């Protein structure tokens, strides 16, 4: 009997009127866990019942504790007929099962009904007493911590990163069972919610067992998804990265969160001096040989594809014995694993050695009924197949591992596209095994100077490249080869040197498809996929060049299948990596050269493109230093050589054989306008409107080039559905519609959030679905974060200028906002040691200082609040939670200024009793420090209506539902004692409507990590004169710190 669950029902409020006669309600509560049910007394005639029940005690196995949700049902007592249900609350008690998280769940929960939505609130207290279980063969995995965050969570350090864990469970979907024909929609929805809750509990427990087997104690980057396969069943699957985490206990745990990476390297117990650029550190002579130059390309292998901007490495040859040793160790460490995959997107310093490029695999499957839910072998086999493919792609890139790994599906009727993608990488073995490989290797690594370009260096043999690519010497260290373009699915490493700012880059594509059945349909889709991948890639490449940038981070390509079309949407954040060569322009070439007017048209287009590139460079502040060839010691460039990118699939294979050993860096990207499609492409390139001034956007955690966030954040979800006119649907018209849909949506976001300017939309996450024949649905979740413009503009200034300017702006600010102590009180050390390292290192190699000045400034305005202050804060926090009537501080979260109102007579409602809970898709909160992780939030809701018009139509219905979902997430977090959700994600938003029947249904699945955070300004009040800005840079990446 390993556990005792105790539940107390305290009170209800704002209940709906259930008895029309009295305008009141006779409410009571059923508390159910597993097969045991308790009831409270009936509280007669009240909309605000005070049950104050006894403690209901459930004695249960911890296996059940993990699987089962606590189910609380509020009912209206009726003497003569059946009791009417008011609504339910499901509480996941998992956070109570590990010691470091929450100890009690206590608070007001919205009472939710799948037909009526939220109907009042109920106050519940839940506790768990766990008994020690010495049974080694137990089925439970209590104690394994789960994190959605795709980096090592703050306040933990990674001892070992074990690797990939996956699991899936299947079941019949209650919606498609025979009984569904005779039960009410409410009963059916509730059966589904309950089942999914059970299945995710089971899944989490099973994953936990795998983690324990690997001797880990946590799962990071946990991603759980549902596949609603309709008739054939319901699949819940999850992937994650098993780790052994150590809680950073005091005083280490209370180190300021926001010091620079360089500082952490010194202070954090785990992190050894940066071994990022370990390859560049051995004493190989400067390589003067000419680099090889090849056409940027990618293979199209039905139904999968790899592409990468990457080049050759020098592995065995150049690397010397040290390099070989490293390689060997990594290999052995990884080969023990079936799948050397990591769902992380940000890594502890030194973890990521090289990045190869994006690897992806897709496969089209026909769904059939899952006959035996206990043996979900088919689905397992499908995924295993895809993962094998990913693994072999990574190998082909000379990489042993895949990072930033994710999996997804798109289902339409009986066809399912399974997709997996990640970034091939070479990792430092240090984190992958118990400290066996440390020692002399470690020593060697530590001796070397850090370079910030190591991850860009190509990971495999230059003479044995799987793909042709342009290679040059790294523009940073001048020692290793780098590709001309780099695509990755991970976040920008914190220490990467970036020039200027980044921006969101999207490729959008639709392809019509004939309606077909079964195999014919699957074949048709399989045939279309490679073309779509190819075009998506072409678009990305073109747009990247148009922005004057050379690398993509956070690349996510979604292919969605519908009845009569396929949609492709790729999002990524473009940046200019200082280590990579300057991208060439885009050259337009016509096929009919003798036509005069045509030539004119071409040259006009060319001019437009050139102008756009110039404008973008200015907009994103991309002004890399002009480096003369002599300085870098490369041979005299040969005349410009054009690489050709042809639209036709068949021709490309001939083109790629063209090997060019020259070292031209201004190679242009040629677009041949040989058909109307290409014209369309060029036009669409130019129609993408940049965000209005003061706005930036990216789909990664942070925006390169912006590092002075203020604390104002606004997370939002926006959904749009458009109906296509069924007449004359062509690919072009479709593309235009889709493109307009996305662009208009972005424009609306910029408009709505205009009062937050200067601001950046971070982690912009688009998902596309095709709910019906002629409907396209786009869902966007992102967070808008304001930043301090004065300081942002100064990133390109020289240090002296900068500190002077900053001092003066600070004075101004002090006048305006006397409470904001933003200061640069450490003028003697404007730069952290590592930065100086870099400067000295790079000045050795003779790079003009201007280049470095533009790099992202992660200066350590070291937050040196002493740990005792933090301790006090933490204690205060602990005391506060649990008490329901906590008055949270008034927070200025609304993007619309409330200055006007403040001057008016103070109204009496300044004391809100509802605590503020922040939500963000990022793993950090700007200007604040996460002090505790309380557990994972993973919630699934169904909402249905049979009175669509009365609820304000589809928009009214969905608007209300999403607001309710937010509210329920916030309530759960608050009940756990938290004040924020980080790494929040809306994984699914399935919307179906039937306006003729006045009906609609929606399913939403969200997850995230509940946390406690403390404002840095709160700390600073005590410790005085602490820098308020520039703090988040380190919080953003998965540094093992705090």
């Amino acid at each position: 009997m390993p556990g005792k669950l105790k539940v107390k029902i305290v009170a209800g409020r704002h209940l709906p009127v259930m008895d029309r006669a009295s305008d009141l309600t006779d409410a009571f509560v059923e508390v159910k866990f597993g097969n045991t049910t308790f009831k409270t007394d009936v509280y007669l005639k009240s909309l605000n019942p005070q049950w104050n029940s006894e403690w209901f005690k459930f004695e249960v196995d911890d296996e059940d504790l993990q699987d089962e949700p606590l189910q609380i049902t509020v009912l209206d007592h009726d003497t003569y007929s059946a009791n009417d249900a008011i609504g339910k609350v499901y509480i996941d008690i998992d956070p109570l099962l590990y010691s470091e998280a929450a100890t009690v769940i206590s608070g007001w929960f919205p009472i939710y009904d799948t037909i009526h939505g939220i109907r009042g609130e109920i106050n519940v207290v839940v506790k768990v007493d766990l008994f020690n279980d010495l049974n080694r063969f137990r089925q439970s995995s209590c104690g394994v911590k789960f994190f959605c965050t795709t980096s090592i969570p703050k306040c933990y350090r990674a001892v070992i990163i074990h690797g990939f864990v996956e699991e899936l469970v299947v079941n019949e979907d209650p919606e498609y069972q025979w009984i569904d024909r005779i039960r009410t929609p409410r009963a059916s929805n509730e059966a589904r919610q309950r089942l999914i809750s059970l299945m995710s509990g089971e899944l989490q427990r099973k994953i936990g067992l795998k983690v324990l087997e690997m001797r880990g104690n946590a799962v990071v980057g946990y991603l759980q998804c549902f596949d609603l396969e309709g008739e054939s069943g319901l699949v819940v699957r999850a992937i994650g990265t098993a780790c052994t985490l150590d809680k950073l206990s005091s005083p280490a745990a209370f180190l300021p969160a926001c010091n620079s990476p360089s500082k952490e390297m010194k202070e954090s117990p785990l992190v050894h001096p940066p071994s990022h650029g370990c390859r560049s550190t051995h004493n190989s002579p400067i390589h003067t040989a000419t680099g090889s130059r090849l056409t940027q390309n990618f293979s199209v292998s039905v139904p999968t594809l790899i592409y990468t901007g990457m080049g050759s490495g020098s592995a065995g040859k150049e690397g010397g014995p040290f390099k070989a040793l490293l390689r060997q160790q990594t290999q052995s460490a990884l080969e023990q694993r079936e799948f050397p995959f990591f769902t992380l997107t940000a890594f502890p310093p030194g973890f990521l050695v090289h990045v190869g490029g994006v690897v992806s695999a897709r496969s089209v499957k026909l769904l059939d009924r899952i006959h035996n839910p206990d043996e979900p072998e088919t689905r397992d086999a499908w995924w295993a197949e895809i993962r094998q493919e990913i693994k072999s792609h990574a190998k082909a890139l000379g990489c042993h591992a895949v990072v930033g790994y994710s999996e997804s599906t798109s289902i339409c009727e009986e066809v399912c596209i399974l997709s997996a993608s990640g970034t091939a990488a070479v990792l430092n073995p240090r984190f992958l095994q118990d400290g066996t490989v440390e020692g002399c290797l470690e020593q060697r690594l530590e001796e070397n100077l850090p370079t910030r370009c190591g991850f860009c260096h190509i990971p495999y043999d230059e003479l044995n490249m799987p793909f042709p690519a342009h290679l040059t010497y790294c523009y940073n260290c001048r020692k290793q080869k780098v590709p001309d373009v780099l695509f990755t699915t991970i976040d920008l490493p914190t220490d990467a040197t970036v020039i200027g700012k980044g921006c969101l880059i999207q490729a959008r594509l639709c392809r019509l498809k004939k309606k077909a059945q079964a195999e014919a349909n699957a074949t048709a889709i399989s045939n279309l996929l490679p073309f779509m991948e190819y075009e998506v890639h072409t678009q990305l490449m073109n747009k990247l060049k148009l922005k004057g940038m050379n690398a993509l981070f956070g690349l996510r390509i979604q292919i969605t299948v519908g009845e009569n079309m396929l949609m492709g949407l790729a999002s990524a954040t473009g940046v200019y990596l200082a280590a990579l060569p300057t991208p060439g322009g885009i050259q337009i070439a016509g096929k009919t050269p003798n036509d005069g007017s045509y030539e004119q048209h071409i040259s006009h287009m060319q001019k437009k493109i050139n102008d756009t590139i110039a404008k973008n460079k200015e907009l994103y502040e991309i002004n890399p230093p002009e480096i003369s060839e002599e300085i870098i010691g490369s041979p005299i460039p040969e005349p410009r050589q054009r690489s050709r990118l042809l639209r036709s699939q068949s021709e490309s294979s001939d083109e790629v054989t063209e090997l060019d050993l020259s070292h031209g860096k201004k190679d242009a990207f040629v677009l041949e306008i040989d058909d109307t499609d290409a014209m369309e492409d060029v036009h669409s390139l130019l129609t993408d409107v940049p965000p209005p001034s003061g706005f930036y956007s990216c789909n990664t955690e942070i925006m390169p080039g912006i590092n002075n966030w203020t604390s104002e954040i606004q997370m939002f979800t926006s959904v749009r559905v458009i109906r296509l006119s069924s007449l004359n649907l062509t690919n072009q018209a479709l593309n235009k519609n889709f493109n307009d849909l996305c662009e208009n949506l972005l424009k609306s976001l910029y408009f709505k959030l205009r009062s937050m300017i200067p601001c950046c939309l971070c982690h912009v996450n688009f998902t596309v679905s095709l709910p019906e024949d002629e409907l396209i649905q786009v869902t966007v979740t992102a967070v808008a974060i304001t930043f301090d413009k004065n300081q942002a503009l100064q990133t390109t200034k020289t240090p002296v200028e900068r500190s002077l300017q900053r001092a003066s702006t600070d004075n101004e600010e002090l006048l305006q906002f006397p409470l904001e102590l933003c200061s640069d009180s450490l003028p003697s050390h404007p730069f952290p040691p590592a930065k100086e390292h870099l400067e000295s290192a790079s000045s050795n190699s003779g790079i003009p200082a201007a280049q470095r000045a533009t790099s992202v400034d992660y200066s350590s305005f070291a937050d040196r609040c002493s740990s005792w202050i933090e301790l006090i804060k933490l204690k205060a926090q602990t005391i506060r939670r649990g008490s329901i009537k906590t008055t949270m501080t008034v927070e200025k979260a609304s993007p619309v200024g409330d200055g006007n109102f403040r001057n008016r007579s103070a109204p009496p409602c300044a004391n809100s009793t509802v605590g503020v809970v922040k939500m963000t898709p990022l793993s950090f909160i700007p200007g604040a420090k996460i002090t505790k992780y309380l557990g994972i939030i993973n919630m699934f809701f169904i909402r249905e209506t049979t009175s669509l018009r009365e609820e304000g139509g589809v928009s009214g219905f969905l608007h209300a539902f999403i607001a309710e979902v937010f509210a329920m997430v916030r309530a759960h977090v608050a009940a756990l004692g938290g004040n924020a959700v980080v790494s929040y994600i809306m994984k699914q938003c399935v919307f179906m409507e039937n306006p003729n029947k006045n009906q609609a249904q929606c399913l939403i699945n969200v997850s995230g990590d509940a946390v406690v955070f403390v404002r840095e300004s709160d700390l600073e009040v005590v410790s005085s004169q602490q820098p308020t800005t520039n703090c988040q840079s380190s919080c953003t990446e998965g540094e093992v710190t705090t």
Partner: protein
Amino acid sequence: MTSELDIFVGNTTLIDEDVYRLWLDGYSVTDAVALRVRSGILEQTGATAAVLQSDTMDHYRTFHMLERLLHAPPKLLHQLIFQIPPSRQALLIERYYAFDEAFVREVLGKKLSKGTKKDLDDISTKTGITLKSCRRQFDNFKRVFKVVEEMRGSLVDNIQQHFLLSDRLARDYAAIVFFANNRFETGKKKLQYLSFGDFAFCAELMIQNWTLGADLKELKVLVADKDLLDLHKSLVCTALRGKLGVFSEMEANFKNLSRGLVNVAAKLTHNKDVRDLFVDLVEKFVEPCRSDHWPLSDVRFFLNQYSASVHSLDGFRHQALWDRYMGTLRGCLLRLYHD
């Protein structure tokens, strides 16, 4: 291509003050979009009309959802669905319960019933305030009235507690409730020159100082007893001789004025006659003085003396009652005495 569905939901509910104003003013989405376009917002932001349309719809939908909560403001504070910073909550409530001067003058003192609600059409036409806005304002009056009608304790406090209004607005509502409850006539033509502020001022004085049921009939003796009236007059005239610019007019009119003021007191005991309070005050005091061109300072002198002299009338035993009555009445009259 048509947008079937278009929504934006923030973790912190976005409130656009300008759009809120347009919504409160009862404009349709189309009208609101047109007004926003006219404000030059498209040029300022570089947005398109479609963006503006979508934004306006979104805000209207949010306000519509919030409206239910605004009907019981404490609910807005405790609800969990919309995360709104307290200062914004206060703004939402305050603006929702704010009303137009022109509108309130039309319904002040009227019974807040269905019958009046039917007249809103006319009021809308007359005042130029949209019918929708008129309805909201009327429903606000009625809602506040219903909630505090039967309550004990301070009217202002009760309103503030149940509707979380600012002090100023709560006082205004107290006046509206007080007028509606007593059904004071305010619509007569001769009362048109009075603003809501004038009435609210009087209401506040009356709420603070008067209790219903006091035996004001006792004061009647001041005009019914001829000796007392003459004595009163001579006391006032002696005191004011040489100090009043309109002395002779005052002397000539004293008895009429005094009768008017004392009779008002007597009428206050009959519920039916209470309604005419302001009509009486204006007819019996303000108008006669105004026609004789009394300056306000003279009115003040006179009322002070008129009220104080009663203390020297030996035969009069209701000094305390008189002071309470005249104290308030003097305040009201001075406020009502203007063009």
